[in-house]
C-alpha cells in the first residue's frame, strides 16, 4: 500500500496540492476526488462542495454552510483578520472586533455606487457572512503574487493577506434620448482587483445562480453577456462587441437590431454566472462607446 506521504492530489478547481487525505480541498472546499465537470464546450462548472466543508487560511479556518444561500462561517485565530462590506455580516461573537478599513479614492467609489466603507474583523472569534440571493459561494485561493479582477458587488470577504485595489473597467457606452445623454457601465465603473502580494490568501465571492469557468488560450475569444461576467485573470483583455443580425426588413428602428456583447480575449481564466441583470440602456441610441468591434451578419 502506498504511503500517504507519497500521494499527491491536485484540486481540479483551484490547483491546491494536498496528500489526498482531507475529504475536501483545504483551499477552496471542493470535494476531494470530484471530477472536474466540464461542459462539451469547455466551461468547467463550479464543483459541488460538501455542506460544512472547511477551508484553511493562516491559522484560521472557514466553514461553508448551506447550499442554497451559503454562509461563510469564519473561525479567526488571534492575529488573523478578514475584511468585508458591512452589509454581508450575518452574525459574530461579541468579542470579535469590527473596525473600518481606510480606502483610498473613496469619493470615486461613492460616485460609482460601491460600498464606501470596508469593515475588518480581527480574531480570535467567530464571524459569519452571507448574501441576499440564492447562488454559489466561490472560494478563490490566491497564491503568492497572484491577482484576480472581480466584477463589483460580488466580493463577500477577503483575508488580511489579500490586498484590495480597483481599476477602471474601461467598458462604457453613451446613449442619447432627446436632450439627455447618459453613460452606461455594463460591468460597473470599476473592477475590484485582489492580489496576494506576500502570502497565500483566500477570497470569497458570492455569485447568483451557477458558476462556470474556462481557461482561454492566447488569442482565443468568447462572447459573453456583459452582465453575466464574474471574474478574470488580469491577463485577459476585454472590450465591447456589437453584432447586427441579418434582417429582411427593418421597421423597429430604435433598437437598431443590435446585440451587445463583451469579448474576452485570452490568455487566462474567465468566469460567468448563469443569472444576470438586464443590461440598462442597451435599447437606446448609442452615441459613443469604449473600444468595440463590430460584426454584421
Amino acid at each position, binding site marked *: 500500500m502506498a504511503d500517504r506521504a507519497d500521494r499527491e492530489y491536485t484540486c481540479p478547481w483551484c490547483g491546491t496540492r494536498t496528500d489526498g487525505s482531507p475529504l475536501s480541498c483545504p483551499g477552496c472546499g471542493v470535494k476531494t476526488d470530484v471530477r472536474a*465537470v466540464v*461542459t*462539451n*464546450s469547455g*466551461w468547467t*462548472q463550479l464543483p459541488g462542495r460538501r455542506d460544512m466543508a472547511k477551508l484553511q487560511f493562516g491559522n484560521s479556518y472557514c466553514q461553508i454552510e448551506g447550499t*442554497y444561500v451559503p454562509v461563510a462561517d469564519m473561525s479567526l485565530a488571534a492575529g488573523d483578520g478578514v475584511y468585508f462590506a458591512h452589509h454581508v455580516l450575518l452574525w459574530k461573537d461579541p468579542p470579535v472586533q469590527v473596525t473600518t478599513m481606510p480606502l483610498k479614492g473613496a469619493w470615486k467609489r461613492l460616485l460609482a455606487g460601491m460600498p464606501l466603507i470596508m469593515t475588518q474583523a480581527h480574531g480570535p472569534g467567530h464571524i459569519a457572512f452571507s448574501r441576499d440571493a*440564492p*447562488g*454559489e459561494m466561490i472560494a478563490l485561493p490566491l497564491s503568492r503574487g497572484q491577482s484576480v479582477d472581480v466584477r463589483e458587488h460580488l466580493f463577500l470577504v477577503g483575508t488580511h493577506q489579500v490586498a484590495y485595489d480597483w481599476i477602471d473597467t474601461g467598458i462604457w457606452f453613451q446613449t442619447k434620448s432627446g436632450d439627455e445623454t447618459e453613460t452606461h457601465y455594463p460591468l460597473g465603473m470599476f473592477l475590484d482587483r485582489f492580489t496576494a502580494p506576500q502570502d497565500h490568501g483566500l477570497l470569497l465571492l458570492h455569485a*447568483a*445562480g*451557477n458558476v*462556470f469557468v474556462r481557461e482561454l488560450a492566447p488569442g482565443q*475569444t*468568447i*462572447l*459573453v*453577456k456583459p452582465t*453575466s461576467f464574474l471574474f478574470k485573470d488580469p491577463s485577459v483583455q476585454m472590450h465591447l462587441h456589437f*453584432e447586427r*443580425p*441579418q*434582417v*429582411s*426588413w427593418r421597421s*423597429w428602428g*430604435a*433598437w437598431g*437590431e443590435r*446585440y451587445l*456583447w463583451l*469579448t474576452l480575449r485570452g490568455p487566462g481564466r474567465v468566469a*460567468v454566472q*448563469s*443569472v*444576470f*441583470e*438586464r*443590461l440598462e440602456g*442597451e*435599447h437606446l441610441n448609442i452615441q459613443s462607446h469604449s473600444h468595440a468591434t463590430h*460584426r454584421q*451578419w
Partner: protein
Amino acid sequence: MTEPRLDPLQRIRCEWCQGQNEPTAVSCRSCGAPLDVKNLVSDSGWREAPRIKDMTEIHFGGSTCQVEGEIVPVAEINLAPGDSVYFEHHVMLWKDEAVPMTLLPLTGGVKRAFAGMPFLISVAHGPGRIAFSRDATGELVVLPLHPGMELDVREHAMLVASHQIAYSFIRIKGLRNILFGGQGMFMDRFVTGGEPGVLLLHGYGNVFERTLKAGESILLEPGAFLYKDSSVTMEVETQKLSTGFFGGTSMNLAKMTGPGRVGIQSMYVHHAAE
C-alpha cells in the same frame, strides 16, 4: 458493423414526455428527465417536473443541448449545420464568435414590447455553440413537441425553441383577461409541423403539470400559469371577499378548463406587484 437491433419491448418509456429510450439510457434522450425516477404526482393530481440532472444531454435534429447547473440552469446548445434555434435576445448568456444571427420575421405587425424594448425573436444558426439562461432561480422545462401539437406559453417564459416549431402569438381575449389575467396581452403559441421539435421553458421556482379531463376546471393564481395545451380554455373568475367594510374586496383567478395539460410555476409574479 451494424448497430444491434433493439427489441422494441426493451425500450424504456420516459414518464415525463413519453419518449422511447434505449435500455441503457439513464436520462431521456428528448427531454433529459432521469429515467430511474417515478412520476411524482401529488394527491391532488399535480405532476412535478423532473429535476434535470446536471450536464444532461438532450438531442434534437442533429444538435445537442446540455443542461448545466441546478440553481439557475444554463441550456448550452451545440448546433449542427442546418439546425437553428430561436429565442428572445435577452436570454443569451454566451456564444462562439462565429455563430450567425438573424431575426425571425414576425407576422401581424402588432407592436409588442418587453421592458421598453421592441419584442423581437432572434435566430442563431449552426454550426456552433450558444448558451442561454434566465434571471432567477428556477427550473428548465423541456417539452419535446410531437407533430400536430399546439402549446400556449406565458409570455416571456420561453427560453429557446428549435426551428422545427412554428412560433406565433395570440392576443389574450377579453379586457378582463388582459387587465386581471396577470399575463399581459399576449401568449406565445408553438405549433409543430411535420417534424418533432423541442421547446425549453424557464419556470420560476418549481414546475408542476396536471392533465385536465374534458370539462374539468381548475382555478389558478394568474401569475403562476406557465403553459397549457391550446385545447385548454382560460377565463378570469372574480371571487368576492367580504371583509365587512365597504363591501369588501375581490381577487381574480384564472379558470382553466380541459381537456389538456396545464403547467404552473411555484414562484409566481403577483400581477398587482408587476
